[in-house]
């Protein structure tokens, strides 16, 4: 392999490399030359049939069955061969075989070259530039955490920004902000990457050519005629007052709002139910029973982190005395919320209304003639629960207004109002039905009523409903001004584009879902010269106020009395303005709700539009972290797909990766399909956010654009028809990477679960937790850990597979991204993966999410095989990875039963000093090519806590060390600490009888353990579950003494 070529490969593999040109795809192809082809698993229609038979067989023989993918169930020979290879596609044979002589030549040459360079290259002289005047609070080398907020669809999520000498490197949740509760989601974590993104627009453009801010200011001052302002959802009081000022100053000016993820249905529903625009807030802390009508409340919407925490707090089972809530869920497509459900029913989105009417009728509201096909006793159990316990009904944002109104009526009838649900004034500065707002705007543009359109932080050309044809309407506007982070689809069609400052670079404010206001404070000067919306709007008022001036001025007038600086510092320190949450309102549902005509679900194929679970509806298209993050359950990376049910696949003869043509009205698109267990039978899920043309180098041209089919009237679901094409598309899923089963389905009991009733029946020996016995003898001597002993417990009951932990880990530990083709050959680098398992039938399985990272085995199989001693144990029992010793043999990875080690096959990490280098955490080594890496339990945080405690001459207290994944987790499923400290949370949780270690029967003594997943089905619906009670030790593993 010549040097030029290998360079090419390297640059191709780097995602951020400035040399990633349009020919990147070509380069990518080079990297996979010679790599074994991905096996094609045959899951055609007939094999779905085989799978069903196989499941029925397993059901009878072993009780409950867990499986990982349809391919695994089909048990084809190819799949068995794939399993036995362990690292099927990691071996990359050389393109043309080398003969011995050539090999020796290369070996000698590389030795000589290596030796020579070591001799002659001097260490470069580094410079130290001190401050002129040191800011009082900055201690070089110690980060400062600043409280701020990041908005998602307009709503604030509180964050703490880790700032190293004026360089922000990482975001964590702000515990005092209600939209965060100290947790953070994957998207908000990735905002830091978005800020440093070298693809961000860097200069003012006029008609596509370079201009500057002064010319823009001048142009604005000479504008006249009607002005229209288009924004996303605005909750910022200062921005709203600024817009109001512009509207007052300019006669004929109008303000429109449009965000593809909006609260239209909630507002319209409350209009039907209460006659006014109010929004519900749910108190899951109080709810024993939850009915979700297609609502993914734990992983979407502005309150998701709060709801996920509150809901999960009622599901923490440690002993047989603990109780838990119960979730009934009807949903069209599997979501994180559905994965947590005790009773889950796939149902077409359009059929949910009929179901809701049935539930209403059952609690004595209205009457209905619809009868959803429900399993026996389902409705009785549900109604029994709803009426006899503290309950709440939650309607999904994608459901039509009437479903929200019915949910409100049911909540009132079952006495939920004031207890498990309260009603509030919307947090939006100007609540409105945004689908109407955007329609009015387009009408006004088309009729020539608008001379100047200012688009702030929105990308309507890409995400506005397709039937409005925003791009065409834009041509009717004389002056269009776009303020955005990227030179995106809207920017290139606008007469002016102004680069926007990221929220980490500018002052601002915003409200959380409950109205609580946070001040957004900048962490760094705009690195690409961006301007804030407040600065741009100030130009229209003829002033050159900075964002800081505007914010200070607004709050000086808003803050009542007292010393303003005191107030201001207090607010900045806490990250929230006290007492700004909205108070509950009294609301009575109208009796006329059930007079509304009922609509019936369509029989045919239905499309559900959802924002992509990782990249949202386009905001994070250019985020390589989120593109490479395996999506919940499908584990797809770098693409979207049309998710179809196994039944639809059978009926249409479709396999995963087949391309279908989807037609809605006169529009059609081609999309690859992915068979999704648990999908509603005739529902196809399409995720938006893909098919971008101007997202940036990372996000351009990947996936398909589902917005093409999305109309203003049917923005969430619509009937469609499909035809199979002959095309195939390469989708990359990590579901089969690092697969742990090698003895066939279920033998190793990787994920374990049972019902609360089972547990309560056998609280000391829950049979489903310890179905296998340990090997009797052991190769290695025991070692006494008498100091700190770090350990982690993951509660599978509350893990919903949202992926927040993976991105948090990526950000903390400088983990590189590798690109789609490298993922395809199994070379993804994330230290933490969330494995998805299914239980039961393919049509409506139980979902299991199991985060797996290095287990820090006390008797780690990776250690004795390392010829360099590069992976060893320390006195705290950590399995440490010493990068500078690693020679890259990969023996450790081969010997790891958990498949958690990651190898730098190429130079993935960015070594050049560019903007992306500023993102790196200075406390973690940046690894280079040829080095093995893996989860370290955030050793940098352990060491920091250790040094701090030693300097203060005390021991590390419980809670001093919080790993990155733990701090991010919205449901606090991850507990970490010193297991030798009896009073630590982790030691207590480990004592639970639900605690088990992965492959504990191999006596690796993993420090990471799991709590078996507990569900709480209604007693009348409980199916025979688990492996039968008290089967401890009955498995034959115990017989193989000293085996393996």
């Amino acid at each position, binding site marked *: 392999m010549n040097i030029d070529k290998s360079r090419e490969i390297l640059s191709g593999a780097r995602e951020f490399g400035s040399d990633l040109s349009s020919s990147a795809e070509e380069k990518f192809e080079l990297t996979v030359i010679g790599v074994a082809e991905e096996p094609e698993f045959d899951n055609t229609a007939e094999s779905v049939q085989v799978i069903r038979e196989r499941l029925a067989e397993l059901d009878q023989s072993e009780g409950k069955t867990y499986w990982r993918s349809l391919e695994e169930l089909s048990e084809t020979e190819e799949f068995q061969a794939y399993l036995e290879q362990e690292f099927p596609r990691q071996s990359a044979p050389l393109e043309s075989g080398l003969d011995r002589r050539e090999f020796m030549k290369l070996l000698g040459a590389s030795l000589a070259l290596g030796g020579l360079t070591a*001799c002659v290259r*001097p*260490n470069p*002289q*580094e*410079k*130290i*530039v*001190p*401050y*002129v*005047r*040191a800011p009082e609070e900055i*201690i*070089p*080398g*110690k980060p400062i955490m600043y409280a701020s907020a990041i908005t998602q669809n307009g709503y604030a999520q509180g964050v703490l920004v880790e700032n190293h000498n004026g360089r922000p490197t990482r975001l964590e949740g702000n515990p005092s902000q209600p939209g965060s509760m100290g947790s953070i989601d994957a998207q908000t974590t990735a905002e830091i990457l978005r800020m440093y993104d070298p693809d961000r627009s860097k200069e003012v453009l006029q008609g596509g050519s370079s201009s500057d801010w002064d010319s823009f200011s001048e142009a604005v001052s000479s504008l006249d005629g009607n002005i229209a302002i288009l924004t996303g959802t605005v909750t910022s009081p200062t921005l709203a007052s600024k817009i109001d000022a512009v509207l007052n100053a300019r006669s004929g000016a109008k303000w429109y709002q449009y965000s593809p993820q909006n609260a239209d249905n909630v507002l319209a529903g409350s209009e039907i139910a209460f006659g006014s625009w109010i929004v519900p807030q749910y108190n899951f802390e109080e709810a024993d029973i939850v009915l979700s009508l297609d609502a993914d409340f734990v992983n979407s919407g502005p309150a998701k982190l709060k709801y996920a925490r509150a809901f999960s707090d009622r599901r923490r089972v440690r002993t047989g005395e603990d109780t838990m809530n119960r979730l009934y869920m009807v949903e069209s497509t599997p979501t994180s919320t559905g994965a947590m459900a005790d009773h889950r029913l796939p149902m077409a989105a359009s059929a949910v209304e009929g179901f809701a009417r049935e539930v209403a009728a059952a609690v004595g509201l209205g009457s209905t003639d619809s009868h959803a096909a429900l399993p026996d006793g389902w409705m009785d159990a549900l109604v029994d629960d709803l009426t006899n316990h503290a309950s709440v009904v939650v309607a999904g944002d994608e459901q039509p207004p009437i479903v929200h109104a019915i949910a409100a009526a049911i909540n009132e009838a079952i006495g939920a109002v004031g207890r498990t649900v309260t009603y509030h004034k919307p947090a939006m500065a100007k609540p409105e039905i945004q689908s109407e707002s955007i329609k009015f705007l387009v009408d006004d543009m088309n009729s020539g009523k608008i001379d100047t359109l200012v688009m702030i932080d929105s990308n309507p050309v890409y995400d506005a409903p397709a039937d409005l044809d925003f791009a065409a309407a834009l041509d009717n506007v004389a002056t269009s001004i776009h303020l955005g982070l990227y030179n995106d689809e809207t920017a290139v069609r606008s007469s002016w584009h102004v680069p926007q400052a990221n929220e980490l670079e500018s002052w601002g404010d915003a409200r959380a879902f409950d109205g609580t206001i946070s001040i957004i404070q900048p962490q760094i000067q705009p690195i690409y010269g961006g301007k804030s919306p407040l600065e741009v709007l100030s130009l229209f008022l003829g002033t050159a106020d900075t964002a800081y001036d505007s914010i200070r001025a607004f709050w000086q007038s808003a803050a009542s009395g007292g010393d303003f600086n005191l107030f201001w510092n207090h607010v900045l320190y806490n990250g929230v303005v006290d007492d700004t949450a909205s108070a509950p309102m009294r609301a009575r549902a109208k009796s006329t709700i059930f007079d509304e005509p009922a609509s019936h679900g369509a029989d045919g194929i239905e499309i559900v539009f959802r924002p992509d679970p990782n990249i949202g509806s386009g905001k994070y298209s250019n985020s390589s972290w989120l593109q490479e993050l395996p999506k919940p359950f499908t584990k797809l990376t770098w693409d979207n797909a049309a998710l179809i049910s196994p039944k639809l696949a059978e009926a249409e003869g479709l396999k995963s990766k087949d391309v279908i043509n989807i037609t809605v009205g006169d529009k059609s698109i081609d999309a690859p399909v992915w068979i999704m267990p648990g999908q509603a039978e005739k529902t196809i899920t399409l995720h938006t956010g893909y098919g971008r043309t101007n997202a940036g180098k990372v996000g351009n041209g990947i996936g398909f654009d589902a917005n093409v089919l999305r109309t203003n009237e049917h923005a969430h679901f619509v009937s469609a028809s499909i035809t199979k094409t002959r095309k195939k598309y390469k989708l990359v899923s990590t579901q089969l990477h690092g697969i742990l089963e090698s003895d066939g389905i279920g033998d190793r009991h990787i994920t374990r679960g049972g019902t609360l009733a089972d547990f309560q029946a056998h609280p000391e020996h829950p049979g489903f937790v310890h179905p296998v016995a340990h090997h009797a003898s052991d190769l290695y001597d025991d070692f006494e850990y008498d*100091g700190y002993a770090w350990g982690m417990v993951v509660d599978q009951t509350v893990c919903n597979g949202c992926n927040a932990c993976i991105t948090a880990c990526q950000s903390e530990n400088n983990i590189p991204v590798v690109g789609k083709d490298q993922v395809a050959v199994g070379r993804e680098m994330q230290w933490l993966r969330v494995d998805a398992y299914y239980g039961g039938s393919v049509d409506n399985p139980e979902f299991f999410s199991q985060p797996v990272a290095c287990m820090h085995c006390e008797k780690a199989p990776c250690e004795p095989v390392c010829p360099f001693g590069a992976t*060893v144990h*320390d*006195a*705290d029992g*950590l399995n*440490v990875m*010493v*990068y*500078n*010793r690693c020679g890259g043999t990969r023996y450790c990875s081969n010997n790891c039963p958990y498949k958690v080690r990651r190898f730098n096959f190429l130079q993935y990490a960015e070594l050049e000093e560019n903007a992306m280098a500023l993102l790196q955490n200075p*406390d*973690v*080594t*940046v690894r280079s090519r040829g080095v093995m890496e893996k989860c*370290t339990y955030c*050793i*940098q945080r352990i*060491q920091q806590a*250790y*040094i701090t405690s*030693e*300097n203060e*001459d005390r021991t590390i207290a419980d809670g001093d060390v919080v790993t990155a994944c733990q701090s991010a987790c919205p449901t606090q499923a991850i507990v970490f600490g010193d297991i030798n400290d009896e009073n630590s949370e982790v030691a207590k949780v480990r004592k639970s009888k639900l605690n088990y270690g992965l492959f504990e029967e191999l006596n690796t003594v993993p420090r990471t353990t799991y709590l078996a997943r507990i569900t709480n089905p209604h007693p009348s619906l409980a199916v025979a579950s688990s492996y039968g009670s008290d089967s401890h030790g009955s498995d034959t593993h115990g017989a193989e003494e000293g085996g393996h």
Partner: protein
Amino acid sequence: MPQYFPPNSNAFAKWSIIGGLIFFTLLLTCLAIYVRSYRNRVNVPVSQPIPFSHALHAGELGVDCRYCHTSVEVAASANIPPVETCMTCHSQIRQGSPRLYPLYASWDQAIPGVNDTASLEAGTNAPAPNSERLEWNRVHDLADFVYFNHSAHINKGVGCSSCHGEVNRMEGMWKNEQMSMGWCLECHKAPEKHVRPIDEVFNANYKKPTNQIALGKQLVEEYHINTDKLPQCSTCHR
């Protein structure tokens, strides 16, 4: 068939092997010395924009280490003082000295008689304020995968001079020790050989007492120095 080589060529072969070995050993030794001292710049003064003398400040004038290296007790980095710290004295003392020009160039205020508008116009060679930033040349540069923490050492009785030598006698600044991993481990494996009482930490003239081992063992106990953890990879590598 005649013999091509006379019998004594056996000896030649033998000696050439021995000679070769000696030659290579010498070469390797030279290389090692080169790499470990010259390339590592041990005892090689590093030139600086201002000929700052620790001997004058820390030695003759007796300024405490912590007056400038403020964060040495609390953070990983000891901190290079901001220009402001220098200017607490040098706005008065040695005002206008050409050796201090880089300092004045980086300072954000005009100093009367040195670099204020009047004196600049009058033609002094002093640089204008804010005209250049002060860039010191780094002396101690560990590998990027090593995480050294000053506070952890200072608070456990490792003196400044144990690693940096007698800074109070150094005119310029240079590395006093290898700062190689083997050198670190020497102490990490047996801290009792080097630990001193905490109130002697900043004393650059400190000499080890004759009963160092006994005293060291007592101090290790007293300061709760965890000798199990010290020699471990994870102590310095993350």
